[in-house]
């Protein structure tokens, strides 16, 4: 099981004004807001914490299939690595920040995850789903050394992507924002 989230930094700056009144307070607790205000790059910190919460939410909903919207209840901690807590659920995250995107992966303790970022700039909306499917199967086949023809891509009723290998199934995670797509497998 794995959760991921990618933020296209340039698009996030255009799409969301985190400085509008009450915005931060809806998503971030006081400790998180302190991290944002203490940061040299507050905008990057906003989207880093956001992507950690989103990735953790996606992992949580694989563990407990459900759907809801409560980003504030997922609390980030940046001491001793990255962790996110939701009620009694705790996971690790790993966040990579480049000048173009922020990518978070959420995983259960001591599990390894692999991510791939894909550029969707020149792919039409209609073909994006197919591109994710193709790239996910390719990544899974390469990482697990399985033949691609033995793999099948599907989604759960909650929209979580899955890969079947013979009778076994593996949850994966996909994320899309602006120019970027990301696939994570565990």
């Amino acid at each position, binding site marked *: 099981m794995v959760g991921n989230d990618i933020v296209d930094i340039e698009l996030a700056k255009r799409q969301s004004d985190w400085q509008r009144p009450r915005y931060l307070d809806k998503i971030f607790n006081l400790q998180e807001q302190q991290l944002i205000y203490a940061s040299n790059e507050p905008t990057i910190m906003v989207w880093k914490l956001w992507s950690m919460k989103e990735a953790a939410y996606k992992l949580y909903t694989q563990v407990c299939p459900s759907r809801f919207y409560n*980003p504030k209840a997922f609390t980030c901690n940046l001491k001793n690595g990255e962790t996110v807590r939701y009620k009694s659920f705790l996971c690790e995250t790993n966040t990579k920040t480049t000048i173009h995107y922020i990518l978070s992966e959420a995983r259960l303790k001591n599990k390894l995850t692999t991510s791939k970022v894909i550029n969707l700039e020149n792919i039409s909306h209609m073909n994006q789903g197919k591109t994710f499917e193709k790239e996910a199967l390719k990544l899974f086949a390469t990482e697990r050394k399985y033949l691609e023809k033995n793999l099948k891509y599907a989604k759960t009723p909650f929209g979580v992507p899955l890969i079947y290998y013979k009778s076994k199934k593996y949850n994966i995670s996909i994320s899309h924002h602006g120019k970027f797509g990301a696939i994570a497998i565990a």
Partner: protein
Amino acid sequence: MNKDELIAKLKPIIAPYVQDEEAFKNLTEDTDFVNDLKINSANLVDIILDIEDEFNIRLENEDMEQMLNVRSAMAIVTSKLNS
């Protein structure tokens, strides 16, 4: 305010964040903000803030939890206006 009046008030609030215009044209109570309108999840917060401003109400985190479709947004606004 009846249901049609409420939907008519909600539509211009939702409009700026919609990524699937076709789904927006056919908006009903069952329309899902994320799955149908393809609204970015960070923009759901903007919709919530805009709803608060428009109706002069405040939504708690528990109210936000189910704010995933038009029907639940209507139910939350109605309950706040009546409380």
